[in-house]
């Protein structure tokens, strides 16, 4: 397993971000929500690492921290051998050409007052990649690459369907020929029939351009066919991380098992019952494991002490006392 490890493109070290929790009419800060609570992760070049977790697990925040679209509280992000969180703005701007993002909402991620040609060509204009005519030509190529006609340039985003808009967002993301793209639930708001098309498009582009993806999703079913490695997030922490096949076949963390059980199965009779406790039946203690209240295999130690993410065997990491 260790032998065929490739070059690491992105390396995240103990990344943290918390948001103030405000209450009352004066909006006093009553506490802090640890959205990303000490995450370390390595992403290999040319692969897809899936980041899976439920709503509020901090996966979107993590994606934005890695691209420095949000300022982190502490930690490091190494990209192509450069630590980007401490980079001065002038050097950060240059680095932006190499890392891009694709968003979930195909409605909110395109400026409604810009034509598609302007949207897709904006990066090329910012970095002055050619004359006006050359950029127009490149935009046509990009649109063709994502399966849109050249005439799309003249139209506004609202004239397209959800799937087509997502293609526009992808064209914008690949325009500068980046090395790394954070895909933030790119298919979650699309019809199932469209999802496969977009996933295939992303795979084709990865192969063609040698892209590295951090693919964020809220369940394991979507990423089953495209991920090389999968990291499962729960309440701001990575609780399990492994090569895809291992994670699906031998999940270690009880939360990962819950996620696998919740993958839709065509036969309703074959559906296994969920192993999770139905609802939190006790308050989570500050010190203990954050999954304690829902955990089917918890022991007393879990309430006292949070388990750290540790390597169980051959590149398979999990954060649980019981594995």
């Amino acid at each position, binding site marked *: 397993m260790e032998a065929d490890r490739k070059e690491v493109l992105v390396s995240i070290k103990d990344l943290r971000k918390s948001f103030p929790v405000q209450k009352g009419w004066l909006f006093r800060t009553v506490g802090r929500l640890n959205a990303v609570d000490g995450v370390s992760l390595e992403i290999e070049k040319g692969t897809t690492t899936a980041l899976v977790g439920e709503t509020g697990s901090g996966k979107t925040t993590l994606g*934005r921290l890695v*691209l420095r*679209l949000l300022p982190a509280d502490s930690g490091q992000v190494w990209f192509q051998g450069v630590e980007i969180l401490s980079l001065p703005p002038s050097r950060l*701007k*240059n680095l*932006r*050409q190499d*890392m*891009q*993002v694709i*968003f*979930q*909402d195909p*409605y*909110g*991620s*395109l*400026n*409604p*007052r*810009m034509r598609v040609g302007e949207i897709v060509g*904006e*990066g090329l204009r*910012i*970095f002055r990649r050619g004359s006006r005519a050359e950029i127009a030509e490149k935009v046509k190529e990009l649109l063709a690459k994502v399966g849109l006609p050249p005439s799309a340039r003249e139209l506004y*985003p*609202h004239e397209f369907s959800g799937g087509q808009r997502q293609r526009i*967002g992808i064209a*914008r*993301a690949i*325009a*500068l020929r980046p090395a790394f793209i954070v895909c933030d639930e790119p298919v979650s708001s699309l019809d199932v029939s469209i999802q496969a098309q977009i996933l295939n498009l992303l795979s084709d582009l990865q192969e063609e351009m040698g892209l590295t993806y951090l693919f964020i999703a809220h369940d394991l079913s979507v990423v089953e066919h495209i991920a090389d490695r999968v990291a499962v997030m729960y309440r701001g922490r990575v609780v399990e991380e492994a090569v895809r096949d291992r994670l699906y076949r031998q999940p270690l963390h009880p939360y990962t098992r819950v996620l696998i059980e919740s993958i839709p199965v065509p036969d309703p009779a074959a559906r296994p019952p969920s192993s999770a406790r139905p609802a939190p039946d006790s308050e989570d203690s500050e010190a203990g494991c954050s999954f304690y209240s829902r955990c089917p295999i918890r022991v007393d130690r879990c309430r006292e002490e949070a388990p750290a993410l540790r390597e169980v065997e051959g590149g398979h990491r999990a954060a649980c006392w019981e594995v």
Partner: protein
Amino acid sequence: MATVGGFLVVAMVLAALFAPALAPHDPAAADPRPESILLPPGPGGVMGTDELGRDLFSRMVYGGRVSLSVGLIAVGISLLIGLTVGAIAGYFGGWVDSALMRFTEMVMIFPAFYFILMVLAFLGPSLRNVMVVIGIFSWPGLCRLVRAEFLSLREREYVLAARSLGAGHLRLIRRHILPNALAPVFVYATLAVGGAILVESSISFLGLGAQPPTASWGNIIAAGRHYVESAWWMTLFPGLAILVTVLSYNLLGEGLRDRLDPRLREGRDGKSARG
């Protein structure tokens, strides 16, 4: 109703633009012979004459010009300040936002109208001063509106996407945030023109605005109030003009709001309302 308002606004703008062609007489040409002063509406003039024998209709048309230019220029100044301060506060947030908003609130809590009168008393009455002073005291509402729009728009995914493409502050503001913040600003500005016209009329009525012989609806009423019993036309027509003008701008503004605000547009076209 918005259409009616829009129609009236356009009509008044045209009347102001073509005032020289529309007015049958020089608005300042006095004819103080006893037989030509305070004539009621009739063949001599559709709105009669004033206490100096000037044609009231001509004075009304030129007064409209004053009202419109004060309204537009005052709101223009207010837009300039409000957009700049609001955009900076909303875009940068944090302590910049706090500092600018405390300053805005300070301007806001001044009893603006009395303050305007005070400033005009110091600077001396003139139309130019009126425009500037109204503009300087009417921007806080607009500023807060712009700030709120910027605060919410800067978190939009298309703004994040532009940032990840390496767009600088200026490009983000000019290309991505401002164009999407303009609709409510436009509505507010339309309503503000009506408000500014009302303030100008009040100031001119009190004698601190347009100075005779320049005609303004406010100072026509001021002159006419001495003759309310004998020459009702001198107060009725300018009063009606102010009422109809302010009403038209308000109707137009409300109509624009209904059209432009996606939150009020639900059910009409869900998809494009989201974008």
